């Protein structure tokens, strides 16, 4: 276990590993997304209340879930980076932040597009919506703090602390619908006793979620690869690699 951990944390090894993993994630994402989109947009029946408008769920829910997942992932990486002083983990956290911010923005945008017909307003100051907005601010704050510190080492550690502090917001986003009576609808997918959706609606949704995850994997690995290269630009293995090309 430890040797594996150590091996993974060596930049050249990670670089090669990620280079071989990216295509896998990429193709899996493409496959899942295409199939589920077809399932969601074509074969799934229209909702008896909302008609075809509900189909935005296939973007909104995966994006919203991913926004939370990426934050946890980023914070975990940052924690590993701080505790074990592993630079690679910091590189992972850095690479995740912009993706997380974009996905959060996507969730907010699709949510408000959906909210207009459903609630009659683009935006309401409701617990779920607000905490999701705070999540976006946290991502932006993370990136803002990084950009304000020019020394990578220092920026890594400072922004990691911020990411860890921000973790308190994640359960608030997730449980906001349970803790406060909210405009936003409650948990339907991960409810006890199975999802409260008919299978031909739910299956494509799960497919989309997996597809989004794989897409995140591919983009994140690509960004980490780039980040590692920039950080290790003076090291021997990068120079060897560049000159051997």
């Amino acid at each position, binding site marked *: 276990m430890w040797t594996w951990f150590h091996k993974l944390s060596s930049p050249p090894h990670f670089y090669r590993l990620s280079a071989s993993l990216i295509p896998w994630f990429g193709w899996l994402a493409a496959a899942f997304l295409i199939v589920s989109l077809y399932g969601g947009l074509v074969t799934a029946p229209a909702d008896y209340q909302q008609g075809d408008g509900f189909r935005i769920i296939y973007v909104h829910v995966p994006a919203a879930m991913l926004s939370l997942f990426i934050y946890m992932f980023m914070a975990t990486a940052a924690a590993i980076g701080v505790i074990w002083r592993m630079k690679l983990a910091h590189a992972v956290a850095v690479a995740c932040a912009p993706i997380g911010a974009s996905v959060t923005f996507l969730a907010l945008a699709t949510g408000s597009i959906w909210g207009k017909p459903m609630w009659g307003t683009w935006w309401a100051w409701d617990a779920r919506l607000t905490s999701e907005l705070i999540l976006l*601010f946290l991502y932006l704050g993370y990136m803002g703090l990084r950009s304000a510190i020019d020394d990578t080492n220092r920026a890594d550690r400072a922004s990691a*602390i911020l990411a*860890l502090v921000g973790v308190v*917001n994640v359960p608030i986003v997730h449980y906001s619908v349970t803790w406060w009576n909210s405009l936003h609808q409650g948990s339907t997918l991960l409810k006890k006793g199975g999802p409260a959706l008919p299978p031909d609606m739910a299956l494509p949704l799960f497919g989309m979620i997996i597809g989004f995850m794989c897409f995140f994997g591919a983009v994140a690995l690509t960004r980490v690869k780039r980040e590692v290269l920039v950080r290790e630009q003076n090291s021997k293995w990068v120079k060897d690699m560049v000159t051997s090309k």
Partner: protein
Amino acid sequence: MQTPGLVDSALALLVRDLKLGYRRLGELANPLVFFLVVATLFPLATSPEKELLMEIGPGIVWVAALLSSVLALDTLYRSDMDDGTLEQMALSPQPLAWLLLIKTIAHWLVSGLPLVILAPLVAQAFFLPADAMPAMVASLALGTPTLSLIGSIGAALTAGLRRGGALVAMLVLPLSMPILIFGARATDLAMDGLDVTGPLNLLAAIMFLALSLGPIAAAAAIRVSLD
């Protein structure tokens, strides 16, 4: 040589910070003045109608409290950082998190406590019913220390950077939004004659969480800033 205990060192630091705050009367007045300006601006900017003022009163008090505590943040560690006293504190045998907690408390005494004391005055100006006053003061008393504690993390993260201002606010405000929501909610409930223990308990819980975790995060951040 006999190292002073936690209480001795805390007292010394508290006295020093209060003394410095008192010597710089101006800095002490800033958050206060700002608080009053924000509060008086609203009747001027909107309209002096009683119903409206009553409705926005608690919210305004809270926003003013939040903004003025953020405003004062810049001075929390910056000056100690610039003249090297913070690095001397980090090299003392006392735990850094403890020292930062004391500094934050001193900061709250200078910037938060006056707000708690002044709030009834402002609330009066906003025609807040007298029954709601205790709830509002209680919510401020429980909420503003948390604001200072969260702010202290932000200030610690940006202590080494020259352009703190907007960045600190950007880091701190999102995290302090829940306090604002619960604080204003408590006063709202009290105005409607409802039970306020719910939000007050929550504020207290958050305060204790912030008390236990905030200084540790701030200490870690200061060590990074000093590097």
